[in-house]
């Protein structure tokens, strides 16, 4: 389904002779309430949270992350099964339908920051770049809150 839409778009772009990058939608993504927790040293992975709102009319797909803070940032998802056992795994690509939001929040999706290069210090911020399927990128400054923070307000 997705690939057939892509193929159609690609074909119509070829037809009118436009570069495929004009089918972008990622410029319509609004990033809100980004936050993360301070780290103890650099050995433990960090996590960052935020809400991604797609204000456009096309679906937008988040495909990856980049940050000077961590060598291996990735989008992860925590799941808790019927027995109360929690596990965490790479979430793959995240599609945000037009007019909708996707929340990265504790116990669900998170930006997993593996191989920290520097300690995450409370009160500082770090840049996190979101890469989208249309080639667009968005860099957000993520505030670092205390280790015991529960949400964007602390």
């Amino acid at each position, binding site marked *: 389904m997705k690939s057939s839409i892509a193929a159609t778009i690609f074909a119509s772009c070829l037809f009118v002779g436009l570069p495929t990058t004009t089918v972008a939608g990622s410029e319509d993504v609004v990033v809100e309430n980004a936050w993360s927790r301070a780290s103890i040293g650099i050995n433990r992975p960090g996590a960052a949270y935020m809400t991604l709102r797609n204000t456009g009319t096309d679906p937008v797909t988040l495909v990856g992350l980049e940050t000077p803070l961590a060598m291996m940032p990735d989008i992860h998802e925590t799941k808790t099964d019927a027995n*109360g056992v929690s596990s965490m795994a790479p979430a793959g690509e995240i599609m945000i339908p037009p007019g909708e939001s996707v929340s990265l929040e504790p116990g669900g999706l998170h930006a997993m920051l593996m191989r920290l290069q520097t300690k995450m210090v409370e009160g500082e911020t770090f840049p996190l770049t979101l890469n989208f399927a249309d080639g667009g990128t968005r860099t957000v400054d993520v505030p670092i809150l205390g280790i*015991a923070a529960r949400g964007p307000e602390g």
Partner: protein
Amino acid sequence: MNRRTLLTYGAAIAGVAALTLFIGWWRVDGPGAPEPVAQRPLPLTQMEFQMTDQDGATVGPETLLGNPSMAFFGFTYCPDVCPTTLSDISGWLDDLGDDVADMNVVFITVDPERDTEAAMAEYVSYFHPAIQGWSGTLSETARAAAGFRASYEKVVTEGDDYTMNHTASVFLFDVEGQFAGTVDYHESREFAVPKIRRILTRAEEDTS
């Protein structure tokens, strides 16, 4: 209807009834029963394990008797679930205020290879002061988890690293060490706080 027909009907009805009972048994208790949902933890008095707390003291299930307790498993290299649980609990404890003065609140690591006594001490220091951090050897950790009917598993991740899957529920025990319920992972404060208050008020009734 002659007597023989009646007998045949009777046998048929009895047969149907027996079959119904059998199907019921099969689905509820028999081989067709759904996978058992997490079992109840043992009473603390029936658990056996030995660990070290954040101050270096030797502790075990018997340490918790005499006061209501809250215990949960996790590891300090956990970026999402564990800090969330610890900060949730810190919030519940703040809400309960002085009422929790005598309550035991114990965070038990499922990753003692990385979570040394010093690591646990530093980690818990960032949360509510009532929260203790216990670590033990691999075999004592297994014995503790078995008593709580909790499970955990080491999972290798990219780049030669590993993470731990683990039971994220918070277990509640009364002053006598009887299991008194669980607070599920990330359960909202409006449900969690009354559950904790219940074991606290029961403790008061027992002592007065």
